[in-house]
């Protein structure tokens, strides 16, 4: 099993290696030189701008809501604790379609505010959209940090003369800082990987440049080089995230800790808390999805919607199942601490920092390389041309998905496996349980919820994925994301609304399970 895990993880890491090989291998091209002199600084600037707006806004929303649900008591807190994770089911580009539609000149928000409400557009608009649907990353990590903090640090600050606000500012918040930073890094990585939102709102980021280089100039070499810049960008953020998580482990001091009791808020305070939590859901889900629903209902059903849904479900379902299997076996390899297994898992883990467009370029580079080698070999053997074009198949698409999202499956599986302690395994062994029985009777019940949420998370991520799908999809193969994007980029929002709406609708139900599972921490025994 170890071998399979290593191989699978390695295959998932291959596309990014292929990108690097191509980018570093070829000579210089005019296009790239031209680009460096003209658009590249713009791409870099806007990528940084979008990332900054997205992560800072998400940090404020996510941290504030995390503090409210983790440490305060107010009516509806239990519901909001998990519901606040649900915006992850909404792709940022879907929020962008709705928000632009709501706020542009002559649209409802513009009219109602007599033109005061700014049109959601450009890099700040994109950043805002990312913040709205990606803040749950910060929320989840910060909430775990707040819940895990012993209340004693906060109390100690109080007895040492700090007011409640100062105690929060100087102890609770800094102690949660690594978690918040890790969440922000995830937001930035997702924002860098996005294509649909920045394309729709007109923010020229690196991934726009990458898609232009590929679809406009058709140059694999240039695309690969831009990819490498994008990956370098993302890897810096990825490194920061890893660093943050390491520090979190250091900060989780050992010893007996008293879980924090929640503050009872006064009636007006509780109203405000409720309102804040509701507002987050309203702005990220209710309002934009409501607008799209309104749009979709006034438009005849686009043809091909059923087929696109089926395609989306099929590729996302298949890729998610494979990703989870790879994730689970990799997590076992990690648990065994084999050097090769760890290396392969980390390589696959880097995939998360690789934007979809880059993964797609990597897959093309990889597969066309294999094809170039296969064609003459096959011809010399059979006298015919190799019958299959590897790129442009659903398989290529799934490989790109895997190389990007296996990481999203590995880490929940890894977390789930930590519940199976060495002592539990030892106990089962000394009671002479066979390997089969240990896996079925001990491991499976303990890891099942974690593995299920790995499956759902990767399914939802793949369902939302746009750029890699755009580059790699087989001819005439439409998914919901593709359909929505094509209509939206033709300014046919009415027709884009139905497929755009279907993605979050399909994703929300399984996400409720994940949300409830992920937010279960700190719910037991925290309030006496």
């Amino acid at each position, binding site marked *: 099993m170890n071998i399979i895990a290593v191989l699978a993880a390695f295959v998932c890491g291959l596309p990014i290696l292929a990108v690097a090989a191509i980018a570093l291998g070829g000579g210089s091209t005019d296009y790239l030189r031209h680009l460096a002199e003209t658009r590249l600084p713009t791409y870099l600037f806007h990528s940084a701008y979008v990332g900054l707006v997205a992560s800072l806004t998400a940090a404020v929303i996510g941290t504030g809501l995390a503090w409210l649900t983790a440490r305060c008591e107010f009516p509806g807190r239990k519901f909001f604790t998990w519901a606040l994770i649900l915006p992850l089911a909404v792709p940022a580009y879907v929020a962008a379609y709705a928000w632009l539609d709501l706020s542009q000149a002559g649209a409802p928000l513009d009219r109602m505010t007599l033109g005061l409400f700014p049109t959601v557009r450009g890099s700040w608009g994109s950043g805002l959209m990312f913040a709205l649907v990606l803040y749950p990353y910060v929320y989840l990590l910060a909430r775990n940090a707040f819940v895990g903090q012993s209340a*004693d640090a906060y109390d100690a600050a*109080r*007895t*040492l*003369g700090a007011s409640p606000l100062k105690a929060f500012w100087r102890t609770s918040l800094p102690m949660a800082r690594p978690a918040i930073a890790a969440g922000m890094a995830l937001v930035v990585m997702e924002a860098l990987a996005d294509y649909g939102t920045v394309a729709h709102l007109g923010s020229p980021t690196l991934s726009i440049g990458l898609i232009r280089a590929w679809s406009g100039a058709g140059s694999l070499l240039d695309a690969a080089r831009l990819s490498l810049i994008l990956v370098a960008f993302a890897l810096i953020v990825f490194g920061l995230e890893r660093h943050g998580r390491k520090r979190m482990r*250091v*900060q989780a*001091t050992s010893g007996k800790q008293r879980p924090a009791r929640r503050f009872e808020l006064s009636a007006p305070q509780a109203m405000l808390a409720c309102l804040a939590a509701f507002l987050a859901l309203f702005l990220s889900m209710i309002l934009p999805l409501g607008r799209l629903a309104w749009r979709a209902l006034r438009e005849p059903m686009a043809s091909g919607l059923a087929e696109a849904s089926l395609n989306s479900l099929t590729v996302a379902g298949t890729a998610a199942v494979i990703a989870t299997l790879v994730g689970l076996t990799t997590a076992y390899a990690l648990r065994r601490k084999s050097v090769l297994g760890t290396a392969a898992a980390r390589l696959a883990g880097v995939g998360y920092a690789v934007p979809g467009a880059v993964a797609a370029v990597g897959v093309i580079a990889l597969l066309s390389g294999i094809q170039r080698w296969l064609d003459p070999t096959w011809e010399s053997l059979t006298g015919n041309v190799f019958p299959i074009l590897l790129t442009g198949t659903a398989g290529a698409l799934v490989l790109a998905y895997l190389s990007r999202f296996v990481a999203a499956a590995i880490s929940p599986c890894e977390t789930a496996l930590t519940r199976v302690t060495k002592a539990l395994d030892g106990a089962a062994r000394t009671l002479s349980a066979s390997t089969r029985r240990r896996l079925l009777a001990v491991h499976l019940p303990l890891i099942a919820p974690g593995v299920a949420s790995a499956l759902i998370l990767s399914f939802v991520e793949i369902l939302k994925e746009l750029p890699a799908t755009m580059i790699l999809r087989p001819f005439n193969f439409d998914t919901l994301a593709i359909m929505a994007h094509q209509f939206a980029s033709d300014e046919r929002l009415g027709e884009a609304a139905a497929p755009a709406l279907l993605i979050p609708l399909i994703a929300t139900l399984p996400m409720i399970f994940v949300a409830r599972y992920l937010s279960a921490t700190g719910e037991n025994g925290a309030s*006496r």
Partner: protein
Amino acid sequence: MSRVELLSIHGARRAFTKDHAALERASLDLRAGEITALLGASGSGKSTLLRAVAGLEQLDTGEITADGVTWTGPKTFLAPEQRRVGLVFQDYALFPHMTAVENVAFGLTGTDRKSRALDQLRAVELEHKASQYPHELSGGEQQRVALARALAPRPGVVLLDEPFSGLDRRLRGDVRQRTMDVLRAAGTAVLFVTHDAEEALESADQLALMDAGRIIQHGAPQDVWFNPVSETAARLVGDVQVCATIVSQGRAALPIGSVASELDDNTPVTALVRPQGIGLTTEGTLNVTRITYSGPICVVSMEAEDGSSWTAQIPATETINIGDRVGATLNPAFVTLVTKN
């Protein structure tokens, strides 16, 4: 600011659920310069009482006053940051993102806070670890930083919640000694919570016993040990054997001897007998059933003719075997008679 001369807790009650009160009319006085140990089993309400004094816990009823100023009362509740109590937490609660000296300086104000924090660290002999982070310090060092942090703002009252329970047994005595020296030098009223009888008896000037949310006995440790007010009180501070009997002709008779009593004849009493108060003689009717050695001490379990079991603690130098028939002598100082009310 000045230290608190007298801190009074009066009738403190606190219930977390309807049918269980963590504190039930608990009353206790703390005086400046005195170290009071609050001893009780886990769940007896010790920590709740301590947290109530610190202002981290409200009271349902009852009062806490410091030199006449109400901290917690029917209409008053002074915020913890305004009480100026120094609190050492069980897990120390050091801020993990601050160095030792930053931790100590947290409660200080003014431009010289850093140097005053260093002074305080010197007092606990940790000046050389000032720039280390909590996770780089050993358990004992963390405890001392926590103590320095609590003492640095010159608190009026110092509270310690099981301050030694996280430490290795061999370290504990030494750390405890040093902590008590530092606390005595500070001269404030000190309340420390513990479930370790030995620790309470050795370190405290005053001992308060807590059971089911109440203070059941309060006094000098020796006095509490020798004159417990009830079986529960006796058990909290050490081993004891219990025997019900009736006073007759000015004496209470037990299967292993008798002790004088000033109580009226025919009063039913419970005799609380410490194993240290039983001496053994070579002639008698007690059957030796078990012998346990613990270094210099030998614990002898015996059965009397009426079937009751007794335990004596004698020097391990005496020779005795299982199955021996022995007699007993009772040292009345180690026997307390309590009446059931």
